[in-house]
């Protein structure tokens, strides 16, 4: 317990320090956090991704053009058998260090500030979320809803409600990756990790495993099924009835559509 508290202190201190370093640029880039609408990290991700890709493309093209130009200018031809660069004066030698450092550093800090804002979106779970427990194992995703309903490889969620997964693993590392929502986070034995996503409209999204976990790693897939809130409610009702029946005298498989019966092994975390 002592270790835990100490660790918490270190964490706070370091987070504070980072915040201090990043505050100024973050102000410029960030809005106020108490924005009422639920954020949509996937959309923000696309936004920042495109921006950063654009930035690096510009930097790359600039460097490439200058290089190509120099190569063309300096190709060996008669009268140019030996290079003719002039030595730098001490002042310009220093300038060629200091100025690039400032330019690069400001690009870096700007990128970091934007990245930090998005990071907060990914890590600050909205208050109106639904909490689902996930136990990953070789090779399945086992979800447990707050009311005890369990599903395997299929997570049914209502559109418009943010969902947070509290994840652990019963054997090796796995990573719950939903490409459409641009999120993933590893799960592992002995620790609980989390991720959240915001399913805005009904539809189906693939879940795939993004951490090498064993021979069948490539086949460890599932689906997120986003239903309209009323359809979701109806589905959940059905599942609850089934769960109640299962908890009564004889256990019956609490399975969803085509998948195998859920393992009842999902352990308390």
């Amino acid at each position, binding site marked *: 317990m002592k270790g835990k508290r100490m660790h918490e202190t270190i*964490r706070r201190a*370091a*987070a504070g320090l*980072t915040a201090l370093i990043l505050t100024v640029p973050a102000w410029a880039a960030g809005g106020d956090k108490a924005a009422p609408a639920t954020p949509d990290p996937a959309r923000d991700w696309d936004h*920042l*991704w495109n921006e950063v*890709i654009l930035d*690096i*493309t510009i930097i*790359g093209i600039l*460097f*490439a053009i*200058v*290089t190509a130009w*120099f190569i063309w200018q*300096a*190709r*060996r031809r008669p009268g140019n*058998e030996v*290079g003719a*660069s*002039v*030595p*730098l004066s001490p002042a310009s*030698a220093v300038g060629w*260090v200091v100025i*690039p*450092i400032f330019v*690069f550093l400001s*690009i*870096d800090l700007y*990128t*970091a500030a*934007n*990245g*930090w804002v998005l*990071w907060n979106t990914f890590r600050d779970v909205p208050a109106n979320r639904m909490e689902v427990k996930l136990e990953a194992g070789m090779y399945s995703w086992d979800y447990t809803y707050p009311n005890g309903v369990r599903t395997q490889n299929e997570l049914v969620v209502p559109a418009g409600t943010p969902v947070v997964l509290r994840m652990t693993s019963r054997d*090796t*590392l796995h*990573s719950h*990756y939903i*490409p459409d929502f641009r*999120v*993933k*986070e590893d*799960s*592992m*034995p*002995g*620790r609980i990790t989390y991720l959240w996503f915001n399913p805005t409209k009904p539809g189906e999204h*693939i879940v*795939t*495993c*993004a951490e*090498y*976990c*064993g*021979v069948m790693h*490539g*086949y460890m897939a599932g689906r997120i099924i986003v239903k309209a809130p009323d359809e979701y409610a109806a589905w959940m009702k059905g599942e609850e009835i089934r769960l109640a029946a299962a908890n009564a005298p004889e256990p019956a498989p609490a399975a969803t559509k085509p998948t195998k019966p859920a393992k009842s092994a999902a352990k308390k975390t």
Partner: protein
Amino acid sequence: MNLKEWIFTTDHKRVGVLYLIGSIAAFAVAGIMALLMRAELSTIGPTITANPTQYNVWLYTHGAVMILGFQIPALTGFFANFCIPLMIGAKDVAFPRVNALSVWLFYVGVILALLTFFIPDPPDVMWTGYPPYSTITTGNTAMYSFTVLILGFASIIGGVNFLTTVAYMRAPGLTLNKLNIFVWCTLAAFVLQLIFVPVLGTAVSLISMDKYLGTNFFDPTKGGDVLTYQNLFWFYSHPAVYVIFLPFIGVVYEIIAAHAKNMVFNYKMVVYGGVGGIVLLAGEVWVHHLYVSGMADWLRIGQMVTTLMISIPVGLMMIGLIGTLYKGSIAFTTPMLYALGVVFLFLIGGLTGIPLAVPSLTIGVSDTYYVVGHFHYVMAVAGTFAIFGGVYHWFPKMTGRMYNEFWGKLGFWITFVGVNIVFWIMMDVGVKGMPRRYYDYAHFPQFEGAHQWMTVGAAILAVGFTIAILNWILGAINGKPSGDNPWGSPSLEWSTVSPPPHGNWPSPPSVAEDWHPYGFKKG
């Protein structure tokens, strides 16, 4: 030729050539593994093997051998051995026998890695060897641990040797500010090896201890922690990418200076800002490989900043390279083509690292082919091009003969086309969601076409590399005599005969006040 004097040699040049032969052989084997993987991935479902474990073993061997058996030994083994004593005017390294020990340990390590194909239950833990999988698999994790330990030890004694050599055995008059950029880069790489290889050694020992000797480092039910391993592993393996980057960019500096016959631009900026900055930052960024591993948030955010800041020293080194071209006299020889290829393609590789450095963006692309594309651009493309260009550049010095320019250039252009097909498409499918380390991508049928193109590209680039290797073999046997200094370079290694005799110079060289390795003169 006396075979015994080659195998048991303690001469740094011959040890270097042994390193070269071994590492190129490792490259060929690991490259063939890559081709097999590409063949397997060319269709959905089983293509050339129905056994996923077979694929995983290829992938393990490919990754581990390419990094530990090809690039690190080629750069810090071959180039360092062949060039450093010649560049500093020494007759050999400080401890020639230790040098011979390091090359044979390297061979032993590679043999151990390749035994994979002959033993039951070969290792299938990927080059990262993460527990708990590595401690519960039926695969032979011990083989992985010992491969890494032996190659690591070979590298440490090599590092001790070279740091001592450069510290005490420089020719009279050769001050620190007259060292070749390559020497600086490689020394920095050795310092990183000395500091960080032991950490990797510890990490891989711990998984074998957990698996075979019953310890509990990574077993949470007994108070252990699985994340400890990942931290230890990347605490080495991130600096390891600079152990690769530094010498290869050093090689590119040598090539560009020699074939543009130009003074390196802002030497002190490159050495103190670039090399020094990388050494200082290399150990503070490892968490960028753990952005989705459940690390504490403050570490992820803190190391976002340090990771992004790596662009500063690397950017200074790019400026130095490009500045060296300015007002040069560029000859488009084969080595120069490879070096210029590195300048352009490393930009792609390095800049695609920038989005990865931002944890909130990595959340979307970590462990996808985007990452695979990024690191193949920096290592498999930029790194390999630098190695190939360097071998061409010092080929006349090694053999006293000239390679064939036509086939050299042809090989380059074929590879250039091939790598861009393979690794550009990789980044594209990665952003769209294709995870790495998949034997089969049955639930991503939309990527089949892209995978087929990558397979085609891999076949193309294999042709290019094969042409280059054949060019060396044939050139060494019956190339035209090259003369002692075909590039007209003032750098010290060109001042002796080609190939240099045992002891390098008839009498120890010393350098004049106004001499500089990049002081090209008219005439």
